[in-house]
């Protein structure tokens, strides 16, 4: 207790000596202004090489491994859609398989009973899954952390039971439905793993691009704010219930569309593919890879889906190791393998908007410093710091 108090006092003193501009100085000291473009960090040559590699991959891998890569990519897109809810918004959602199931069954029912072309069912599957998410998430959206977790498990269980019990006589019970008509694009039927590879790769690329844009948009920032501090977000005017619901619906729409792809690829949909265990798997991909980070989730999907396949001989032990790895990760690296980088903004971008900031900027200009130097908002004092360090110190 005493040591802590002494530490806080020292911190407070260090701050008061520095004066009002200390935060910018501190920020510059910790993160010297960077030069050059910041972004994905890929040069033109490197990205060309990557694209060539991805396009020629099926011919190198052969059918079996191409099929595995297809599965991995499907899981990657699903995990990316869960990442919007769990990673960006920080909602403990463990029922993603339910949304995925709604999409897959929409496609299966429309294709088998009404002979609708599979590709046409794709937007419908997404829309229905989104609507379903809107309906079920609306009454539970205010639930805190682990309560939400249990309720979403409940949703996936109820959906599973409904599918098994052949609800409305449409879902085919425990055996599921068999889909015979393939996806056809301009007369070209997508049947072989290689066809599917390019089809799913395209979806993955579009997903990554859209989600990358979304995470840096106003929407993405709002979700992050809710994750960091819901109360603060709400008190500064972010409509938290609205954004949380939007995150759910966006994730569900994406999962629903992937349900279509899954149904077309596997040719049968049955309740077993959309169980609680599947939800846990997706949850683990996001958490272990790095919640909130697109590269992290891709890495997570790669590790969790393909590693067990590579170590096939140890198949019996793989879930054992998986469980132990989850515990170990949370103890030693709870932020995931590749956590998202900190958001960075140019100070000058915001300074002019606020009176205090404008004054600070004038001062800085008088001193000849660069007002647009990069700084990291995480280095600025948080409300909690102010309350602990400053408020009590005075």
């Amino acid at each position, binding site marked *: 207790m005493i040591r802590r108090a002494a530490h806080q006092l020292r911190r407070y003193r260090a701050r008061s000596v520095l004066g009002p501009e200390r935060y910018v100085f501190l920020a510059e000291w910790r993160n010297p202004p960077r030069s050059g473009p910041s972004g994905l960090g890929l040069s033109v040559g490197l990205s060309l090489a990557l694209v060539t590699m991805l396009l020629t991959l099926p011919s190198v891998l052969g059918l079996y491994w191409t099929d595995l890569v297809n599965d991995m990519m499907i899981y990657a897109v699903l995990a990316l859609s869960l990442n919007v809810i769990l990673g960006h918004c*920080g909602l*403990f959602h463990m029922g993603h398989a339910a949304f995925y199931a709604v999409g897959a069954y929409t496609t299966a029912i429309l294709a088998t009973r009404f002979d609708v072309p599979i590709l046409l069912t794709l937007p419908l599957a997404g829309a229905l899954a989104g609507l379903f998410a809107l309906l079920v998430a609306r*009454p*539970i959206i*205010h*639930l*805190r*952390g*682990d*309560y939400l*977790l*249990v*309720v979403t*498990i*409940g*949703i996936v*269980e*109820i959906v599973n*039971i*409904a599918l*098994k*019990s052949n609800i409305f006589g449409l879902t085919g019970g425990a055996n599921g439905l068999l889909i015979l008509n393939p996806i056809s694009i301009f007369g070209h039927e997508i049947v072989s793993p290689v066809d599917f590879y390019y089809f799913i790769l395209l979806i993955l690329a579009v997903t990554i691009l859209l989600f990358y844009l979304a995470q840096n948009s106003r929407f993405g920032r709002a979700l992050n704010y809710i994750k960091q501090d819901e109360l603060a977000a709400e008190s500064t005017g972010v409509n938290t219930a609205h954004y949380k619901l939007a995150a759910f619906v966006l994730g569900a729409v994406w999962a629903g569309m992937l349900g279509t792809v899954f149904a077309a690829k596997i040719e049968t949909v049955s309740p077993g593919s959309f169980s*609680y265990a599947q939800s*846990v798997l997706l*949850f*683990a991909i996001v*958490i272990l890879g790095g919640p909130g980070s697109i590269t992290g989730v891709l890495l997570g999907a790669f590790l969790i889906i393909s590693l067990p396949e590579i170590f096939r001989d140890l198949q*019996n*032990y793989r*879930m*054992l190791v*998986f*469980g*132990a*790895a*989850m*515990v170990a*990760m*949370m*103890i030693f690296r*709870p932020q995931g393998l590749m956590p998202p980088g900190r958001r960075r903004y140019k100070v000058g971008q915001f300074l002019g908007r606020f009176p205090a900031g404008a004054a600070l900027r004038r001062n800085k200009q008088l001193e000849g410093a660069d007002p647009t130097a990069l700084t990291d908002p995480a280095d600025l004092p948080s409300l909690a710091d102010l309350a602990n360090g400053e408020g009590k110190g005075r």
Partner: protein
Amino acid sequence: MLEQLTNGLAIGGIYALVALGYTMVYGVLKLINFAHGDLFTLGAYLGMTLLVSFGLAGYLPPLAALLVMLLMVMGLVAVSGYLLERVAYRPLRRSDRLAAVVSALGASIFLQNAIMLFYGPNYETYPDLLSVTASLTLFGVSIPVMRLVMFLASVLLMLVLYLFINRTRTGTAIRAVAADQGAARLMGIDVNRIIALVFMIGPALGGAAGVLLGLYYGNISFNMGTMYGLKAFIAAIIGGIGNIPGAMLGGLLLGVLEALGAAYISPVWKDAIAFLVLILILIFRPTGLLGERVAEKI
């Protein structure tokens, strides 16, 4: 109707015993111990091993054998619970809730697969210790002896726990830690010891419930802990999480509701009933039936 009621009360007793483990851990740590359901499974399997492999039933009369086995299983599962807390939860005491929940999930997957690797993936038949089919007639209703034993055993265990929590010094310390960890520490209570103790009492009761369930249904499987665990947790929420009499009430209530639902609505939808009840409770009375109103919004 009465037939369903007694069945519901017998299963409800199991839910209540398992729910106590959840509610106590949640009370002191605000953590859903996802591995608790698998400790329940572990109890069922250990009981089977003691009866079959060690031939406990051969040396002793049935009821005495049951009693000895129950005590041994409770002890063994308590030790497992302690180890679980040491390995998977204590290092995460100060980290955020998501990390602890994920660690609990990982521990659950680990335990479940460890049981599967050791005992095999098939259903195991439980030894028929108390001739399950025997029944006796009370007030004109025929009640299987097993149901009566189960109900009485779970009520007895709950009663012992209730007295322990409310009447002893250690029980007071547990309540103090649940109410305010910091203040409890200042009053000289060894919080780590109390948390370890909670992680032994809860699993001990869960293990006992596993044995009773094995005797009742006659077979057990390595993954039954997931469903029973979730339902018991729901029972704890129904009663008001963190509240010990609430867990008992919630468990019995859920058991009866399920039995009635299976009989009068549809047996297929039996597993969905618990989750529907959960959603309704969280919408209309999030603090549970006996939970006190708390400032923290759920």
